[in-house]
């Protein structure tokens, strides 16, 4: 047990790091499945959520739940707005138009946050508590809370996707937009629902990262690359894949650190990504027909 403890600690650390990006990866994957483009604004949507969380917490007399609810509401609204004002108009254009537009939205959001609030780091306050120690294996209470929160959000998303009529329609649009429309599905409503879910997931992800680290204007942008890696590794368009790959990448990185060191563990995640894509180009859980 003793010899195993350091590795278990590494695995736990990796799982938690993976979990915080899993929600962003899920948002990217969903967006790709249904709106059919890689949305680079999701990182800055997370940042926005984290900042609303900081403001909401201050207004809600220090309640992190209040901050979280404010973040989800505001980010959902902004996400739907980006669809109505920008992405809806670009839907008939090639994929690259939406991708570039999402980059533009990302820069715009970050610049506005910086302009209004500055670069100073902000904090989402949660009570700090000591780790629980099980013969050398340490578990942080905050990680349990974050893990619980992530599972809750994931469960809600999957319930929506797989157990509600709306989710069925979303999946129908993802499978074939024209066929779905021909079958009488009003794709406009489905898209609004999708962008609301993407916003809510981004906000929850932003809050989790903000609690674990500090809130700065670069918070989400810095996580975009690992989140994209997880989404691609899991198979773009596969919600389960995004989450499993996010956590898996985190664990692989940390477990490799005794051998490759703390600098190259990051590269290792991408090596894993390349290897998987060479062997299985559609990703771990992807189906080839999802990406036409």
């Amino acid at each position: 047990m003793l010899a195993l403890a350091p590795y278990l600690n590494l695995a736990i650390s990796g799982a938690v790091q993976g979990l915080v990006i899993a929600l962003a990866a899920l948002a990217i994957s969903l967006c790709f499945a249904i709106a059919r483009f890689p949305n680079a604004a999701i990182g800055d949507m997370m940042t926005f959520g984290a900042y609303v969380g900081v403001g909401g917490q201050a207004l809600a007399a220090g309640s992190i739940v209040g901050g979280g609810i404010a973040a989800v509401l505001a980010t959902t609204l902004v996400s739907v707005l980006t669809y109505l004002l920008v992405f809806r108009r670009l839907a008939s254009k090639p994929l690259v138009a939406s991708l570039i537009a999402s980059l533009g939205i990302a820069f715009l959001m970050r610049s506005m946050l910086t302009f209004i609030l500055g670069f100073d780091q902000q904090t989402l306050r949660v009570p700090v508590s000591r780790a629980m120690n099980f013969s050398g294996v340490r578990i942080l209470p905050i990680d349990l809370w974050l893990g619980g929160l992530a599972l809750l959000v994931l469960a809600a998303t999957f319930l929506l996707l797989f157990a509600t009529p709306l989710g069925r329609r979303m999946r129908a649009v993802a499978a074939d937009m024209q066929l779905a429309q021909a079958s009488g599905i009003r794709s406009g409503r489905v898209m609004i629902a999708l962008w609301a879910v993407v916003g809510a997931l981004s906000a929850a992800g932003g809050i989790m990262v903000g609690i674990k680290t500090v809130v700065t204007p670069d918070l989400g942008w810095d996580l975009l690359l690992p989140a994209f890696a997880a989404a691609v590794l899991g198979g773009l368009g596969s919600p389960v894949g995004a989450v499993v790959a996010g956590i898996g990448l985190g664990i692989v990185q940390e477990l490799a650190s005794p051998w490759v060191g703390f600098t190259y563990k990051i590269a290792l995640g991408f090596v894993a990504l390349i290897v998987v894509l060479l062997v299985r180009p559609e990703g771990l859980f992807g189906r080839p027909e999802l990406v036409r």
Partner: protein
Amino acid sequence: MALLRVSRREWAALVGAAMIAAAAPAWAQDVYRVGALNPVTGAGSTYGSGMQKSIYAAVAEVNAAGGAGGRRFEALAEDTQTSPEPAVLAAKKLIEVNKASAILGTWSSSVSLAIQPLTQGSNTILMHTSSAPTLFSQNVRNLGWGFQSGSKYNGRAMNAAVKNEGFKRPAIMAFNNDAAVGNVNAFKSAYEAEGGKIVASVVYEPKRTSYRSELEKVVAANPDVIALSGYLPDTTIILREAYELGVNAKFIIPGWAAGPQLLQALGPEVSEGVLVYESVPDANSAAFKRYSEAYQKALGSSGEDNVFAAQAYDMVISLALAMEKAGPGSDNLAIAKEIRTVSSPDGQKVTSFAEGKKLLQAGQKINYEGASGPLDFDEDGNAVAIFAVSAITKGKYVRSYVLN
């Protein structure tokens, strides 16, 4: 001949240009342009605005005293965004478009290192507040001047603090860049030169969501103190995780990673007992009081909180005194050579530009004692600062002692 055919419009432009050129000397003496290239946004934003305002205040002071070496100063403000790429673009603009002869007040080593080739290639003077060793080892023609103590001195300060506190098993954690790694390496060589041994050492990457694995590796060696060399965000995360994991070792961190935001983020319980080493201005000196007054006026807060602004202020004064010493019409290389001599310990002590200018005109040797410190530059062009150690006690920084 067709060769010299000039249209009417071109004549008008020519005449206009000639008139402007002829008019210029009537309203201005020669101008020496300095670029105030500071971290107004980004990780250094806590300091950047204060640095820029202090440069402007010092420029106004020099001009009020009649300029330096027959030239009036003109400052141009730019933002590095605390990031090398925008900083390089801004430096290029300052040098090539604005014809700035000196760039003052770059913060963070990654920024100063990125600019150094540009300034050296154009004989521009670069005065910075960065500590990366290569800034000094690659310094040529006296063009680079470091007003913040470099890695060598930071390492010595850490060593002195660790000795003073009686620690026996120090470990090292450093942010992966030239300056932070340089600082802990300097600490390591100073500590091990005296027969000690560093028990563990980790270099960590920026922008991670957790540093738990890095911490656990260091803690496995059972250190009694961890010399943590990083910046504010990563330091915040590491100190919080160390508390959560129940790490018993104390931490010693540099002043630029501390500040009020660290206390605010961590709260009194988590931050209790963290040691902070930093270079400090001599708050009793006359130059500091003059700087501090200008700072208070421009920013409405105490100049004591921003040692980098004091350094930025001194950059202008040192440069102006060197220009005065080098004499009218001197080029940058001649000016750069005098920066050390106007504040060398064997001259007569002065604490302002006006005072120094008067003595220089009387042909005397001077020693400018600045707002940020005595400004005695070493052979690499690095000012040797005064260091002090504080301990965070009940959510406040409490100054413990000054290091020698």
